[in-house]
């Protein structure tokens, strides 16, 4: 699997495991991802969600033999519960992978995968080389 972006590395995101085809990303709590005291910052959660989305999509494009670049279109994040000072995980699902765009659904959780603390919907432009 390709390495993460400089931003993901700097934030402290690591690849925890591969769950089927989808990599599970991990972000440990630290001062650099803290918002209100003792609470995970919503921006750091968003960064984790996006990183999980791009990692899955990159892998799927490789699997299809497509040397396509990914360009973000948009991201809509739902904040469902406070992030505690615990490790946080995220996993994406490809809803649609078309010729020009991909649509992904991503969830982030802490102790229980069935109780997400945040979710995201992402649209990504998939640009084939000319």
């Amino acid at each position, binding site marked *: 699997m390709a390495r993460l*972006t400089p*931003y993901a590395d*700097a934030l402290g995101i690591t690849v925890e495991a591969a769950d089927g085809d989808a990599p599970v990303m991990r972000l440990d709590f630290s001062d650099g991802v*803290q918002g209100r005291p003792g609470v995970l910052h*919503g921006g750091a959660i968003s960064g984790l969600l996006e990183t999980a989305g791009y990692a899955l999509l990159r892998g799927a494009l490789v699997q299809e033999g497509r040397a396509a670049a990914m360009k973000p279109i948009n991201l*809509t994040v739902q*904040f469902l519960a406070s992030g505690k000072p615990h490790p946080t995980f995220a996993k994406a699902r490809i809803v649609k992978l078309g010729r020009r765009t991909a649509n992904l659904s991503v969830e982030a959780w802490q102790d229980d995968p069935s109780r997400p603390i945040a979710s995201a919907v992402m649209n990504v432009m998939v640009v084939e080389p000319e």
Partner: protein
Amino acid sequence: MPPPEPADTAFDPVRAAPFLTARSHNGWLGMLYREHGADWVELELPWRSDLVGEDDRAVLASGPIVSLMDMASGLAIWTRMGSFQPIATLDLRVDYTRAAAPRASVFGRATCYRITRSAAFVHGVAHDGDPADPVARMQGVFMTIKVNPGILPGG
């Protein structure tokens, strides 16, 4: 002792922003206060090599832009409210219209356009010099926190 003047207690983003952006995630990103109006605040996120989204291009990743718009939104809400009170992000949408210029600072300008009893609505742009030619456009909703902040989202 007389009660303090309203001017002393009203939320002032010029004084509050450096404090709120000095530490933790916002401090790590390196956000700076730029300017504000009655219902908007603009912050700056200087370019930094470890915040880029791709190895081969000197362009900020999209994650930091979400953090920037989130903080600018909070400041815009407090500025319009005239007071600092706990709020939590309910949801946030960011459209990425184009890549920022290489090694450019990204500026996040958020406007609070509506406050109800329990919610605050924001919109805004991220730009690299000209707000009329944005690199991203944001819309979001925040909730005021009244009791038991531990169970509420955001940060």
